[in-house]
């Protein structure tokens, strides 16, 4: 199977990978619901990969919706805005879902913002031009993105202005918009593509112009036919292509989508720009369009609240900083057999236990799994069946790395390229001996990183 | 222990002197050398004798058979054994055989040939007794072998070796798996066909090689190599 797209040499897939059950039917046909503005939001000062931001507001200060409350401290860092209007409270140190302890700015809601359909229209509705975008200078686009506080909404939360900045050193020829939502359960990007394809297209055109890409392509997996149709319709006449790639985990990984679309391998430790590609998530593109054209910052995002442990699995448009507990309540609460709350999807997401944990810009979903689903098999001895080798999308030997890591053998784990692992979890999913491979490798990576520093 | 300490103190001077060290090593070396020479002088002949005896004491048995050899030993008679070396020219190389001529009161009673060849595990060394006219095999002894214990090394058993006694030497012996009945057929050792075949093949080759040098007499044997006897 090929892409059947002119100029794109990719085969639409990559080597290895797994096919976990999708469980997308729980929420894929649920139109995005708009959550009423919560009483408080808690905004972490560290919402992205890179440096945290510095608060610009004092406790008890009144802020408006979208007002800048934090400023990036470094290049790889971005602006933070109030996602609701209200009064800033004293900073609190909290544990985020990913386990990091961070200073947060709670804001007590006071004042009105559009609600329901009104809010949706405010953010995704309106007029999304596909022509006349030449008026926007590349440098201005990047600046507007930074001012909008945009980060990658797919989960990694890399500041978007860094990715989309025009660069002379590494010319970009292709912008790939990542519409692959390969994590099981999650459907937030899917719903956005179906319901609001126009801002995505506009945003992609703007981002493409900013990086100087000659080609723009949106990669979507073949299990999302309605999204493909919607995007194709919206993209008509713009030159943007939709690449239909194979449904497989982890197709949404940057490097693997590039391989699937243009058949280029991003070098180890390198970035997509090393092969002339810029990549961003579909949700980010919609936010780019809003930030550049309407000068509106990122304050809300679509979140999938799903899994067998949620009474009414849904896709929710919610302000950043809302607590996961409030999201759960909005979706009917937890079922009695709910056993694990995960920020993100079940393959790479972070489990947490405090319902007060706030949503950050990179939170693409909340998956609540049931007791039966998380029942882990008993760990037995590795019989070296090599199934983990067969599925590793990075072409590594996970069991060797994990064992080297278990025995704290840094040299051996380096020889097996431990740092190339991006913890997608394919190996641990497949392992018949139920060895916690990812956990071991993660510990090993930390150890190697420490050794590298000293 | 105190005594030791005092000794050390007094020896301190000796220990640090290079000259004393040199003399010590020299004296030791000479002492050891002399004692080794003594041992060699004393035991050398015995060892050489052992080596030769190992071969020679088998000769009567191999030429005359067990009974006759025992009888001769009982009557205190001995065979005259003349060792010689026979060289056989083969394409590309020469092959040497140690041959022992067994004579009794001047009459040629038979030959004993030392031969070696590749077995299953390692080289096998054989002593082969032949009648004077080289028509029959009169005996077989395995001098050295490293065949698999329990299988291949059964070639040293009397039972297996006795098959060769009185076997015809003027045609090739054949190994068969079980039930050798006709002359010239040899039963293989169970589970060790390779070892059995190796020994038989070595015998066939040796007899073939030596037929001409030995039957044409000692004088003509010199044609292929010099007579060392």
């Amino acid at each position, binding site marked *: 199977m090929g892409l059947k797209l002119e100029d794109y040499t990719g085969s639409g897939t990559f*080597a290895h990978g797994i096919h976990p059950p999708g469980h997308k039917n729980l929420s894929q046909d649920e139109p995005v619901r708009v959550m009423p503005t919560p009483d408080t939001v808690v905004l972490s000062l560290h919402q992205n990969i890179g440096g945290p931001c510095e608060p610009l507001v004092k406790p008890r200060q009144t802020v408006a919706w979208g007002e800048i409350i934090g400023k990036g401290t470094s290049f790889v860092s971005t602006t933070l805005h109030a996602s609701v209007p209200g009064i800033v409270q004293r900073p609190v140190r909290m544990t985020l879902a990913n386990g990091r302890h961070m200073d947060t700015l709670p804001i007590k809601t006071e004042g009105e913002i559009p609600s329901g359909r009104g809010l949706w229209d405010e953010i995704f509705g309106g007029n999304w031009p596909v022509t006349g975008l030449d008026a926007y200078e590349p440098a201005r686009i990047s600046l507007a993105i930074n001012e909008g506080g945009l980060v990658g909404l797919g989960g990694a939360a890399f500041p978007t202005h860094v990715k989309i900045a025009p660069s002379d050193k590494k010319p970009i020829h292709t912008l790939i918009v990542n519409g692959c939502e390969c994590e099981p359960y999650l459907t937030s990007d899917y719903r956005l593509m179906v319901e609001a394809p126009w801002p995505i297209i506009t945003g992609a055109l703007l981002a493409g112009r900013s990086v100087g890409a000659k080609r723009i392509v949106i990669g979507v997996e073949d299990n999302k036919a309605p999204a493909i149709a919607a995007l194709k319709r919206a993209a008509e006449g713009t030159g943007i292509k939709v690449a239909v790639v194979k449904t497989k985990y982890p197709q949404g990984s940057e*490097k693997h989508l590039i*391989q699937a679309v243009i058949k280029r*391998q*991003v*070098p*180890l430790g390198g970035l997509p720009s090393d092969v002339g590609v810029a990549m961003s998530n579909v949700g980010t593109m919609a936010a780019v369009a809003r930030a550049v054209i309407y000068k509106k910052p990122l304050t809300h995002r679509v979140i999938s609240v799903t899994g067998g*442990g949620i009474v009414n699995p849904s896709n929710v448009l919610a302000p950043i900083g809302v607590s996961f507990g409030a999201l759960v309540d909005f979706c009917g609460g937890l*079922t*009695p*057999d*709910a*056993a*694990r*709350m*995960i920020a993100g999807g*079940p*393959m*790479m*997401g*972070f*489990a*947490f*236990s405090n319902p007060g944990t706030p949503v950050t810009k990179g939170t693409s979903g909340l*998956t609540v*799994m049931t*007791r039966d689903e998380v*029942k*882990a*098999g008993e760990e*037995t*001895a590795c*019989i*070296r069946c*090599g*199934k983990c*080798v*067969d599925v590793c*999308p*990075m*072409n590594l*030997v996970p069991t060797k790395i994990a064992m080297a890591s278990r025995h704290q053998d840094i040299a051996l784990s380096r*020889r097996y*390229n431990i740092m*190339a692992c991006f*913890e997608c*979890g394919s190996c*641990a999913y*497949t392992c*018949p*001996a*139920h060895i*916690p491979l*990812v956990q071991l490798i993660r510990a090993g990576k930390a150890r190697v990183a420490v050794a590298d520093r000293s | 222990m105190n005594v030791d300490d005092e000794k050390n103190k007094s020896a301190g001077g000796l220990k640090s002197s290079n000259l004393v060290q040199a003399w010590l090593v020299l004296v030791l070396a000479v002492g050891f050398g002399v004692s080794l020479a003594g041992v060699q002088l004393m035991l050398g002949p015995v060892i050489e004798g052992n080596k030769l005896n190992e071969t020679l004491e088998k000769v009567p048995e191999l030429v005359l058979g067990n009974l006759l050899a025992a009888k001769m030993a009982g009557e205190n008679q001995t065979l005259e054994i003349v060792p010689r070396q026979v060289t056989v020219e083969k394409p590309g190389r020469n092959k040497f055989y140690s041959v022992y001529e067994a004579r009794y009161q001047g009459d040629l009673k038979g030959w004993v040939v030392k031969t070696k060849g590749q077995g*299953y595990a390692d080289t096998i060394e054989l002593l082969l007794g032949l009648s004077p006219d080289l028509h029959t095999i009169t005996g077989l002894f395995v001098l050295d072998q490293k065949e*698999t214990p329990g*299988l291949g090394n059964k070639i040293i058993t009397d039972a297996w070796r006795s098959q060769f006694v009185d076997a015809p030497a003027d045609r090739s012996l054949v190994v068969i*798996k079980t039930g050798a009945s006709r002359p010239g057929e040899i039963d293989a050792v*169970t589970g060790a*066909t390779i070892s059995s075949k190796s020994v038989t093949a070595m015998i066939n080759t040796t007899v073939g090689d030596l037929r001409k040098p030995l039957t044409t007499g000692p004088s003509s044997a010199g044609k292929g190599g010099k007579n060392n006897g």
Partner: protein
Amino acid sequence: MKPIDEILPTAPVIHVSPSPHLVQTASSTRRMMVDVLIALVPVVAMSLFVFRGYALFQLAVCLGGCLLAELVFVKMRGRPSTLKDGSAIVTGIILAMSLPGTAPWYVGTIAAFVAIGIGKIIFGGMGMNLFNPAMVGRAFVMISFAGALAASGFEDVRSAVDAISQATPMNAYKINGVVTPLTHLFWGTTNGSLGETSALACLLGGLYLVIRRTASWEIPAGLIAAVLVLGGVADLAGPADGWTVLHHILGGSLLFGAFFIATDPVTSPLTPTGKFIFGAGTGMLIMVLRLFSGYPEGVMFAVLFMNALTPLINRWSIPTPFGGK
């Protein structure tokens, strides 16, 4: 307090753990063992059909021996019983299938104890062993009691079964130059070790394993390819005595070894490249042993030798990571 799992689910109980949170529950080590057992069905059935009581007897001895050995040795180490994981059963059946039916009871018993004790437990139990346990056991008795095994087992003239009283095809060829017809080798109506006679049964079981991905296809593929190449060369170079490369493939324990012994995951390399090298190396050694050594068959020693090389092959075949040079 009861453990969390035992509390009735009347209210959500949230606990955390690192990702991934999704596990493929359908696959487990036990399931893989069961797959091997299913794949062994045609082989066992064929051996029961050809050798009747002899096969039943050998199966009982080896299976009993292996289970008892596993029980005893694991207990000696003070570990919880590992009988349930099924690996001892697999070892037992493969061992029985690799022995001739006529081997006396003590051969099977000693082989079983050596297989489990020296082949597996001494290395630290399942997953740790360097050599294929069944082959360690077989090698031990093969060297110890060569007389009672392949070398002369078929000479048991008291045997009631016709097939037993003939030489194995490999021996018949090696010693007397007799070529067994291909059809006999294919269906398995010849003498030999219990499981090796029928090429058809081995192929059926092997295909099941490969399709289930319990055994990787690379090993049998590499092995058979190497035998084809070397056997083909021998065919062209050697005298036409009727023993062709096809006889090499269908005869002896080649297919049984290729599908059931060489594919033992614990003792074979991890990566596909490594597996292919392992298979090809085993195939080459088999042909070298068959053509040039004193033994008529070389599968066991070839597999054991390549087992010893497995850690090295693993080291040679570290795959280039995605995006690496």
